């Protein structure tokens, strides 16, 4: 039993040193886990004593994991997406973002999250946009906790068919972010299991952050004031 435990600890510590803490955190047994953590701390101390350069790297917050996307991550990831999912890109390559068509978004999102050298495990933000000329857009800011990369995905849809596949089950925070975007822009996220308004009341009319939004006259018999006095 104790031999087995030692072996397990040695294994997870080695992984953790390479930046993969999941193994340690997943150990069920509390005693083993704390032993593994202690061993890890010891190993780290020994390591830093050996190589002073490594402390500097971790002190400045540089990732010790190999960064496969040096240069411009948006461009690199964009190229990878074109390879893997031909015909999913919309428009030209840009430095600041990756423009996608809505059709394959769910598959692409799953791939972005799970692909070993990308691992975009954290969805930072979904921003809705009204670009005018009948176009709505959703912008996704993704971040990888392991590789420390950030990219931005943009998906534009027309107002008539304002539908984007939901990624609520890929990143769980997508649930609330998508509800908020739906609430404000009326973009329907297909496949979302509970797409309701989130900040506004259920029976509110219209999509407030669209540029041509007009406030409803009354709400449950209460006048909604329209003239903004004292502004500007």
């Amino acid at each position, binding site marked *: 039993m104790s031999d087995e435990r030692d072996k397990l600890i040695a294994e997870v510590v080695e992984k953790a040193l390479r930046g993969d*803490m999941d193994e340690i955190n997943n150990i069920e047994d*509390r005693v083993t886990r704390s032993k593994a953590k202690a061993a890890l701390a010891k190993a780290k101390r020994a390591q830093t004593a050996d190589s002073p350069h490594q402390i500097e790297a971790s002190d400045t*917050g540089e990732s010790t994991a190999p960064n496969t996307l040096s240069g411009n991550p948006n461009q690199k990831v964009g190229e990878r997406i074109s390879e893997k999912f031909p015909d999913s890109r919309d428009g030209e390559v840009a430095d600041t973002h990756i423009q996608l068509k809505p059709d394959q978004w769910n598959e692409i999102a799953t791939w972005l999250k799970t692909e070993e050298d990308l691992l975009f*495990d954290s969805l930072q*933000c979904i*921003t809705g946009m009204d670009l005018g000329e009948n176009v709505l857009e959703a912008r996704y800011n993704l971040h990888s906790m392991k590789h420390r990369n950030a990219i931005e995905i943009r998906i534009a849809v027309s107002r008539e068919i304002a539908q984007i596949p939901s990624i609520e089950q890929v990143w*769980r925070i997508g649930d609330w972010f998508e509800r908020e975007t739906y609430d*404000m822009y009326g973009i329907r996220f297909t496949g979302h299991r509970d797409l309701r308004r989130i900040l506004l009341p259920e029976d509110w009319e219209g999509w407030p952050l669209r540029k041509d939004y007009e406030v409803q006259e009354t709400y449950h018999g209460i006048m909604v004031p329209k003239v*903004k006095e004292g502004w500007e």
Partner: protein
Amino acid sequence: MVLNIGPQHPSTHGVLRLQVKTDGEIISEIKPFIGYLHRCFEKHCENVTYEQVIPFTDRCDYLASMANNFGYVVAMEELMEIKVPERVEYIRVIMAELQRIASHLLALGTFGLDVGAFTPFLYMFRDRERILDMFEMTCGARLLYNYMWVGGLSHDLPIGFVESAFRFLDYFEPKIEEYNNILTYNKIFIERTADVGVMPADVAISYGVSGPNLRGSGVKWDIRKDEPYSIYDRFDFDVPVGIGEKGNLGDCWDRFNVRLTEMGESIKILRQALTQIPKNGDVHQTIPKKIRPPKGSIYKRTETPRGDLGFYIISDGSPIPNRLKMRSPAFTALSVLDEIGRGWMLSDVIAILGSLDIVLGEIDR
């Protein structure tokens, strides 16, 4: 049974309604209903100029207004490529860290209150009061400051601020030990919080949980360290993470303890900043006459007491933002409540909610 908690309830930290499905006393589902404090922040921002947005950011997270100001001005300055003077940077860091201590004091105090410890709450408010006094001394306001402006500050530090800040730190540092004695290692408190509401690291990341809540789950992630903004790369401080000392990693006690330890780290930063701060400098020097950022967009994150505060600003070259989105850390922290609250008793849900440290003003915006 379906049980309704709120919207007016002391332990919901604002106006939050929870619809709780229970089986006996065990929770099977929690449905949060938010929006009671919705003030159309993002819609208003599209109608006011860039400088007029700053008071709105105050009112989003009203317990950490300085940090919200900071997040917004850092994003704006990066968009407009403004380099602010050294003194301004230092004053901002000092204010942000004082605000972090004040905000954590309130979070810890009310958390204690939620699980039945009344006295620590008063102790912490006593000390928070001193920080608010210092803010009042600096800019005249105690809660909503409008202190940091794009490119500078509204006022320079008043005479005698640095000395009084040092006096406060000397007074406050031993108090952390006092909190430990009175609350952290109190047996009843440990019973109520250890092993309750365990949030594994992968769940936390998937739900976008950030800040002390994420660090409580053992993830060493702090934007001040990992993506340094302003001058945070100059200071020497640690990032405390939960280690599951009293129970499992990522329980309520861990989140509590991370906040408490973080106050000590803030003291470290404050001491360094107060020593290094340049004596002279004009805080209005780089404030632009007219704020007209170039066409483009930016997403910038900063570390507030509650976690990653992101501002997505889209400019079309006019003095009014085309779109301004705020990614609020409390919003993501509340969304995880259903996931980690299931299977616990009703009274535990109150503890879990308290440990997440949410501010409804920021969730509803």
